[in-house]
C-alpha cells in the first residue's frame, strides 16, 4: 500500500500531487483549479482504492506550486484533500488544504433572490466558519452552508 502510493507520488520530477480527492469530485476539482488551462503536464487518475474514501482520485501537476489562495479553493468541496510538494522526485512537503478566508467567483449564492443569481455578478463570500465551511454572501449577506455549496 505504502509502496504503491510512493510510486504514484514519485511519478513527477517537480510539482504538486493532490491526493485523497473523492472520486466523484475529481472533475470538479479540475475545473476549480482551471487545470484545463495549465501549460505543463497534468496526470489524472481516478477510482483508486482508498480505505478512507472508498474510491479516490489523484492529480499530479508538473512544475506547478500553488499559492494558498489558489489551492484552498478546493477545500470548499474536498476538505480532506492532501497535497504533496515534489522536488527532484522527493516529497519535500505534505500539506492539507485549509478553508480560505474568502471565496470569489466559484460558488453560487444559495439565496434565489440574491443579485448574483439575477444578473451577471461575480460572487464574493466571506468564510464565517471554516468547519463546517460556512459562507456569507458579500451582496445579500445571507449564509450559504456546507450542504448548500454549489460550484458555479
Amino acid at each position, binding site marked *: 500500500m505504502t509502496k504503491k502510493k510512493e510510486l504514484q507520488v514519485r511519478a513527477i520530477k517537480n510539482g504538486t500531487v493532490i491526493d485523497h480527492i473523492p472520486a466523484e469530485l475529481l472533475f470538479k476539482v479540475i475545473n476549480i483549479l482551471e487545470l484545463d488551462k495549465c501549460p505543463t503536464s497534468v496526470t489524472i487518475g481516478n477510482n483508486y482504492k482508498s480505505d478512507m474514501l472508498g474510491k479516490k482520485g489523484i492529480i499530479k501537476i508538473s512544475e506547478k506550486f500553488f499559492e494558498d489562495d489558489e489551492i484552498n479553493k478546493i477545500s470548499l468541496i474536498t476538505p480532506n484533500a492532501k497535497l504533496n510538494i515534489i522536488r527532484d522526485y522527493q516529497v519535500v512537503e505534505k500539506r492539507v488544504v485549509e478553508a480560505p478566508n474568502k471565496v470569489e467567483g466559484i460558488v453560487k449564492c444559495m439565496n434565489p433572490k440574491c443579485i448574483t443569481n439575477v*444578473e451577471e455578478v461575480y460572487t464574493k463570500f466571506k468564510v464565517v466558519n471554516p468547519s463546517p465551511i460556512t459562507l456569507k454572501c458579500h451582496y*445579500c*449577506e445571507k449564509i450559504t452552508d456546507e450542504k448548500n455549496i454549489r460550484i458555479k
Partner: protein
Amino acid sequence: MDNKSLVSIDDYTKEEILEVLAKAAEFEKNPNSNMLEGKVVSSLFFEPSTRTRLSFETAISRMGGKIVGFTDASSSSTTKGETLNDTIKMVSNYSDLIVMRHPIEGSARYASEVSDVPVINAGDGANQHPTQTMLDLYSIQKTQGTLENLNIFMVGDLKYGRTVHSLLMALSHFNPTFHFIAPKELEIPRAYKIFMDKNNIKYQEHTEFNSIINDADILYMTRVQRERFADPLEYEKVKNVYILKNDMLKDTRDNLRILHPLPRVNEIAVDVDANPKAYYFEQALNGVFARQAIIAKALDL
C-alpha cells in the same frame, strides 16, 4: 467600492452612528438649507415605497437639491430589459448621489460598486434598510436621552423583520438588554443569538406578551403577517396575541416609548395612539432629519 455609500448599517462604526445622529439633531433645529444647491440626486425606486420615497424627497428638497428618477420599475428602462449595472452606470453620470430601493437582495451593494457616486440604500428586498435603522436610533436617543444601557423589547415578527435585525446590530454598540417577544415560528434567528452570545449582549426570549413590558424603555412593535406562516392554523393561534392595547401600558415606565416602523395594521390598537408613550408618528417625522444627516455625510457636507 465607494466607501461613502450607505448600504448596510454595519457600514457605520459606532462613532459614525453618533456623528450622524448629532447631525440629524442639527437638521431638526434648522431643516431648511442650501446645502444641496446645484446638486442632483437620483431617486431610483425599482419598487414602490411611498413612505420612504416621500421622506427622502422631503429631505432632499429641504436641503435645496434637485431630484430626478422614477417611482416604480414600470416607468424605468428595466422593463425594457436593461440591467441594473447599465442603469446605475448611466445614472451615476447624471447625478451626485443615488438613493435606491430595489426588490433584489444585494442590489444596493452591487450598485455601490458599479456607481461612481455614493449610493444610499433605501431598502434592498428583505436584506437591509439602514436609513430606517438610523431613524429608529435617532428616535430612541431623542426620547431616552441616550442609547446606552437601555431595555429594548422587540415584539412580533422577529424572524423576517429586517428592521429588527438591523436595529439589533446597531444597538449592540451600546450595551443593551434585549427582550424578544414572538411566537416560536417567528423567533429571532439563530445567527443573531450567536452574535449576541459572542458579544456578551444580554437577551431573553418570551412567547407571552404581558406585564414583562413593565421594565421596557423601548417597545419596538412589528407586524405578524399571515403569509409568514406555512400553516394557517398557527397564524390563527397567534394573530391576536401580539397586539398592544392601551391598558397594557398602565404600569409601564414613564420614559417608555412605543416605536413601529409603520405601516401598522392591527398590532397596535388605536386606543394607544392618544397615550403619550406612543411615538410612532413622530418617529416617522424623524426619518426626514436622519436622512438629511445621512445625505450630508455621503456627500461630505
